[in-house]
Structures are given as structure tokens and as C-alpha cells.
């Protein structure tokens, strides 16, 4: 990593329309949070792609490790009974 005069990195999340989740769209460098917000607006919403923006310091994000994914997500693998299709319901029974 550079030691660096480089501005820190922020991840950008945008809510495209009211009622939708914020979704990750990319990142920006900025000196501080306010500048990150303005850069995110200029970079990711030039065509009205959003009604709300979150910016988060990239270094504050804690991510799962893809190398451990098998073990990490293993507990859910043998629980097919969590899905509605696991249960055979007779055709005669409606609206279930």
C-alpha cells in the first residue's frame, strides 16, 4: 500500500428509487466524507441514477474471506427443510 498523500478510498452505495435498497456501485477517492459524497454524486448519478447515496470508508468494511467460503457457509448446506418446496402438499389443498 502507498504511504501516501493519496486520499482514502470510499465505497459508494446508491438507492436508485424510493422503495429500493442501497446497492454498491463502485468507489471514489476523497479527502473527507463530504468530498466523497460530492464525488459519488458527480461520478455515479450524472443521469439521475439515484435518490440517496451512502459512502463508507473502504477500510471500515469487514468482508468474509472467499478462501473460507466453503466452511463458512457450510451450516446452511444441509437444511433443505428451510425451503417451502421441501414439503409435498397434496394437490387438493389450495392456497398453501
Amino acid at each position, binding site marked *: *500500500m502507498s504511504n501516501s*498523500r493519496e486520499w482514502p*478510498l470510499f465505497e459508494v452505495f446508491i438507492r436508485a428509487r424510493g422503495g429500493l435498497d442501497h446497492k454498491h456501485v*463502485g468507489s*471514489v477517492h476523497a*479527502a*473527507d466524507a463530504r468530498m466523497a459524497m460530492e464525488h459519488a454524486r458527480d*461520478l455515479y448519478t*450524472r443521469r439521475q441514477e439515484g435518490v440517496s447515496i451512502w459512502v463508507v470508508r473502504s477500510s471500515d468494511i469487514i468482508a468474509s474471506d*472467499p478462501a473460507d467460503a466453503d466452511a463458512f457457509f457450510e451450516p446452511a448446506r444441509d437444511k433443505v427443510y428451510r425451503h417451502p418446496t421441501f414439503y409435498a402438499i397434496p394437490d387438493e389443498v389450495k392456497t398453501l
Partner: protein
Amino acid sequence: MSMQIEALEERFQARIDADERIEPKDWMPDSYRRTLIRQMSQHAHSEIVGMLPEGNWITRAPTLKRKAILMAKVQDEGGHGAYLYGATETLGVTREQLIEELLSGAAKYSSIFNYPTPTWADIGAIGWLVDGAAIMNQIPLCRCSYGPYARAMVRICKEESFHQRQGYDIMLQLARGLDAQRRMAQEALDRWWWPALMMFGPPDADSKHSAQSMRWKIKRFSNDELRARFIEFTVPQVRYLGLTVPQGEIDWSEFRDVLAGHGPCNRERIEARRRAHEQGRWVREAATAYAAKQRDRELKEAS
């Protein structure tokens, strides 16, 4: 150890063959990482340098509407550069390194931007032909194996279509104008036709990176395939304008010369970038100092 690497490489290729996307924290061969850093940063640099030939025309565009449109297009190019730098950084290089490589002349960018834009018709020809060729190259990249690159390309392709259409719109207006305007349009077409065809890279037989990039699904069609498709799409558009398709063959010695730094504007472009970077230095430093001051103030208030 090497056995282990071999197994990892095999699994990596299997994931690619299964059309899975590779993400930043996934294991990848060093050569895949290096290839992507080279290709993506060249792509980012091209967007940034691509602002220059058009930026020259913002103050001279013939109407207020054309000025506003051109400004929006140039802003998009800057944005595309930023998306691509961001995606390249996920591979473990810093923005500073990438910019340093561009400014020092160590990095390459698309040769097309080393040609001059002497008339307003050149701006039309760039949007129509250069952005058109770029779209042809970029659409397959939306399905490239590296996730951040593919996602950046989706965003870019959505925006490029406006660029190509506004270029054709300029050409259309000139082609429907006076004799002198039609002549200007034809001359711009003559200037940009060959360089646009060269944008697809050397002929397949001479393309040294192609086979491996195909295997890694960074590249999905050959240079010659894409070039042929571009010609097929573009020739009817030339005819509609009532202009003439330039006759002849691609001069590959010109391609190599421009690539080697001997094009009409290579020096000028990099100097313009360096100057802009230098002139912006005090702004960056002031913003950094301001951010530090605000942080100190908050700390003091908290204590």
C-alpha cells in the same frame, strides 16, 4: 509448492470455463492479475487522454446546445476513466501509481487520441467512429471474467451510446448542409476511418496477447472479427450520410509509429495531462489540509 500452484491454476481455469466471475479477493494467477492491470489501466488512461482532443472544442462548438452536449460527453469520459481506475485498484495497485505511469509516459493508451481535431466535423467523426469502435470492443467486455471490470464496462457501455449518436447527429447536420460543410464531413471521415479501424488492434496473426486472453475470457472475439463487424455496421451509415467510404488498406506501419510515440500529438497529449495535474496540485493539497484540520477540530471537541 508448485504442485499446489498447479492445482490452484487448474481450479481457477475451471471456474472461468464455467463462466464464473473472478472477484478481487479470489485467488488468481499472477499473470492474470498483471494482464488485467495492464489492460484495464491502459483502458482508463485512454478515457482520460480521450478528453483532450474533444476538450479542445468545447469553447469553439458552434452553438450553446453543442457546447453543453460536448461538455457532458467529456465529463462522461472522465467518469469512465474513474470507474476503470477504481476497478484496476481492486487488483492491488494504487491510483497514484497508475497516474504516475501515465504522466511519466511509461503506460500506453489508445493510439487514436494522438490524432488532431482540426475541424468541428472531427468531433462528429470521433463520436460516431471512435466511440462506435470503442463500443464494439467494449460490449464483449461486459461479460469479461473479472467482475469489477465487467461491472464497470456495463456502466460505460450504457453511457457510450449517447456519445456515438451525438457524433452521428453532428455528421448528419453537416451532410445536410452546404457544399463546404459536406466537404468538411467527408474530410473528417477520411481522417478518422483508418485510425478507427486500427482501434481493434493488429491483425489476429500478429496479436501477441490474444490466445491467453481468450482462454481467460478477458477477450471474447478476435481483433479481425470485431473490425469486420464494425465495417459491416458502419458502411451503411456512411452511405446514408451521402459520403464516400475511403478506399485502400490499413497502413500498419502508421499504427506501429503512433504506438511507439511518433503520432501527430503524442507529446502534446501527455504534456497537457502533466500540466493539468500540476495545476491541480494546490487544490488537492488544500483539500487534504482542510480534511486534516477538520479531523483535528473534531478530536479536540470530543476530548
